[in-house]
């Protein structure tokens, strides 16, 4: 749920990075954090376990500049990817304005990708959202690894609705900002359409 503040002349939107465990959601946010101008970002918060697995969420506030005198602020969140943290994932989706699904391109993670994208659809439905009506993009991550499925295979598996898709290597930053820009644009376009 975007928040329009006429007093502060700000639009605030919430974007959630979703995907199976170890697919690179936190790595996406870390790369964005590292490469963003200090005055355009806030502190990145990671609620993680001792082994650096996301426990509840990562949070990164970003400013993207002004539109018609309104500052645009995006709050980026990741969910914990591990299957048993489903209750937490549902909470993070509350009030979401746009979703990035990060798929792990490795062949052995195909089942995990499918399970996660189905879990995303179900959890959104529980909150009264439809994945088909929400600003939504998909990132095929880890394209640099040797044992990856083809983009065609991935598309067939997790992108049957043909939403914008991006190949990425979040560790080195390939595709990270392209993905972010695409979802931010879709969210703003939806805001325009909905107003």
């Amino acid at each position, binding site marked *: 749920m975007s928040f329009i503040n*006429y*007093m502060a002349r700000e639009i605030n939107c*919430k974007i959630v990075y979703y995907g199976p465990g170890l697919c690179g959601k936190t790595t996406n946010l870390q790369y964005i954090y590292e490469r963003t101008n200090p005055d355009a970002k806030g502190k990145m918060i990671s609620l993680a376990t001792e082994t650096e697995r996301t426990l*509840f969420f990562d949070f990164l506030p970003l400013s*993207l500049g002004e539109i018609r005198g309104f500052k645009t602020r995006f*709050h980026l969140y990741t969910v914990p990817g591990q299957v048993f943290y489903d209750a937490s994932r549902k*909470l993070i989706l509350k009030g979401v304005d746009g979703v990035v699904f990060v798929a792990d391109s490795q062949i052995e993670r195909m089942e995990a990708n499918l399970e996660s994208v189905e879990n995303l659809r179900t959890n959104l439905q529980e909150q009264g959202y439809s994945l088909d009506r929400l600003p939504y993009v998909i990132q095929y991550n880890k394209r640099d690894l040797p044992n990856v499925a083809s983009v065609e295979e991935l598309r067939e598996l997790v992108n049957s609705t043909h939403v914008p898709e991006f190949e990425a290597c979040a560790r080195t930053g390939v595709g990270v900002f392209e993905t972010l820009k695409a979802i931010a644009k879709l969210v703003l*376009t939806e805001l325009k359409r909905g107003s």
Partner: protein
Amino acid sequence: MVNPQMVMYEEEFNRIQMVVDRLVQDANARVVFIVDKNGQLIAASGDVENLDTTSLASLTAGNIAATGGMAKLLKENEFATQFHEGEKANIHIQLVGNRVILVVIFDAKSSLGLVRLRVKRASEELNRIFEALLKKVQEPGESPFAEITDEDIDNLFND
């Protein structure tokens, strides 16, 4: 539209800010702030200069969301109040009208009893303001975003 928007206007913001400013005084608090359930900071008052209110807002909302999840499992409606006691600082968190979260940070200069008393009164006032705000938001009106062009959006991303 999929997402109903939270909107804040100048008039309501000023009324909310007054309540928050007064609560800092009345409760002898260090900081008071209001966050919506999605983690967006709405208003803050007190010694906020050296405080990362954006992060605090997001964590507060996460906290309330997690507690709400626990309440649901116990077939409770909500746990409307939370209190965290530290060595120097304490945090009192109150859900207002199941819509926004009122957070009071205080130290030894105040007490839990005083904070609870003052929060109760402030919550009632805030609830009235937010109810009126919600009605206003539902009225059809001009939005500045109807006029945004694709070019405006593209311009944001020109590096």
